[in-house]
């Protein structure tokens, strides 16, 4: 192990993670738990069956206020922020002039003159520089408020029942990708019905000095310690849960070399809205067709595909694994990869070069996992 060059940042829950037996690792410049005592498999499965609690305080937040807030943001992102209503959230992307991805993010609308952008931890500084450098003479106030929020995510079929014990907000009335402002355990908070696991659940934003209270009270309300109680979950479970749900992870499926259309993110690419950075290139790519496409695959041999391994078709190296892992709930070995579009059909046999051994796999539909309808 080499010593990190810079001091790692820590969330307000750092000492709690250590008390809970969290194994701490560096992630995007932050000191974060990769797993707790229960282990990744149990954390993952518990989230699918009951509930998991995640510290996501490392995520960045950018506050945009003023009469031009929506117009300014809409010029930078691919989805149509003008379609948002108050108390609604939208998945979107910051794009380069080439139509590739600076970051993926959530855009929250509090009012027609107030948005909050929630961005990835490792890209917060880059995003802030990009967003603030595109400011011209709009009537807005722009602030990096990442240090003003802690964020915890409670995910899983039991999430609503657990969180409801701590708030008078009518949680069942909050629709998916909507949010409310209110109190959780008496603490002023933003309660958003969003997440990154493929389960129902909530993300709660509050003042960092209330993080420990919210975390501990949520564990208590969720019967942490019982076999069917909530479990604190680390980054490893967060990754396998999002992978089973077929969601992109910045730096893996998407980055500044991949376009939104290649990454199956056409659904957040609104080419008919007013101009945004990269629109022309994305429009051209849509008309010409993409050369490669992100697909899901399932390993059919023995073996586990891992990130950055080569994909072969008919003996030719044609692509690369973006994320590969065992899937603890599905009990399969799965992954996502870019392959030339002519090979990107479901059922196609591919091979993965697993450290020199060619392992058979098959392209399958995304997502791998979809939660059962309530």
């Amino acid at each position, binding site marked *: 192990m080499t010593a990190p060059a810079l001091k790692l940042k820590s969330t307000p829950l750092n000492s709690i993670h250590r008390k809970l037996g969290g194994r701490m690792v560096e992630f995007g410049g932050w000191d974060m738990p*990769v797993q707790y005592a229960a282990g*990744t498999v149990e954390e993952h499965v518990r989230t699918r069956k009951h509930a998991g609690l995640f510290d996501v305080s490392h995520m960045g937040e950018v506050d945009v206020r003023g009469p031009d807030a929506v117009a300014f943001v809409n010029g930078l992102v691919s989805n149509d922020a003008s379609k948002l209503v108050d108390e609604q959230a939208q998945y979107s992307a910051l794009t380069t002039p080439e139509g590739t991805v600076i970051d993926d993010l959530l855009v929250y609308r509090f009012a027609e003159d107030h948005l909050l952008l929630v961005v990835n931890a490792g890209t917060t500084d880059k995003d802030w520089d990009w967003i603030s450098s595109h400011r011209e003479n709009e009537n807005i106030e722009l602030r990096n408020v990442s240090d003003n929020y802690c964020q915890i995510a409670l995910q899983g079929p039991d999430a609503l029942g657990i969180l409801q014990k701590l708030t008078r907000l009518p949680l069942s009335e909050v629709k998916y990708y909507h949010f409310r402002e209110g109190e959780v355990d008496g603490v002023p908070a933003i309660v958003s019905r969003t997440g990154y696991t493929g389960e129902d659940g909530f993300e709660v934003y509050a003042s960092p000095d209330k993080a420990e209270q919210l975390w501990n009270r949520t564990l208590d309300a969720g019967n942490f310690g019982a076999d069917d109680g909530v479990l604190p979950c680390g980054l*490893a479970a967060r990754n396998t849960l999002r992978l089973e749900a077929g969601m992109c992870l910045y730096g893996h499926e998407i980055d500044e070399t991949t376009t939104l259309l290649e990454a199956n993110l056409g659904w957040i690419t609104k080419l008919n809205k007013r101009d945004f950075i990269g629109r022309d290139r994305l429009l051209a790519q849509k008309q010409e067709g993409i050369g490669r496409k992100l697909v899901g695959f399932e390993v059919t041999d*023995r073996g586990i595909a*891992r990130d950055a391994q080569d994909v072969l078709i008919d003996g030719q190296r044609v692509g690369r694994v973006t994320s590969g*892992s065992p899937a603890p709930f599905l009990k399969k070995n799965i992954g996502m990869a870019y392959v030339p579009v002519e090979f990107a059909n479901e059922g196609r046999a591919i091979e993965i070069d697993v450290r020199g051994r060619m392992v058979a796999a098959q392209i399958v539909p995304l997502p791998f996992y979809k939660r059962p309808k309530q």
Partner: protein
Amino acid sequence: MANVPENLHYSKDHEWVRVEGDTAVIGITDHAQDQLGDVVYVELPRAGDEFVANEAFGSVESVKAVSEIFTPVSGKIAEANDSLTDEPEKVNKDPYGDGWMIKIKMSSPGEVDSLLTAAEYEDFTKAENE
């Protein structure tokens, strides 16, 4: 605190060796399995394969990562624990027992003498964690 049985020899790559005549039984230590987390896949050699000391003979994978496993002694594989194919979790549950990995017929039994004792291995893992 990780379990480090007295009667075994240890490598700095966190393998243990139990000598049975001219055969060495090899697995990974309790400390190693704890660091790895849930073991979900183990790849082992076949009987008859030959390895020299410190060569990788297989790999062990958790959800998050792959680690190579090295043989601390040279020789020919007498037997691999193929039950780990279907029950890799034995490596977590019983690293010194049912979770053993290979039995190797040693070509240079003297190699065992250069391995760490239980006390030395405990000091080594403590130093490594500091």
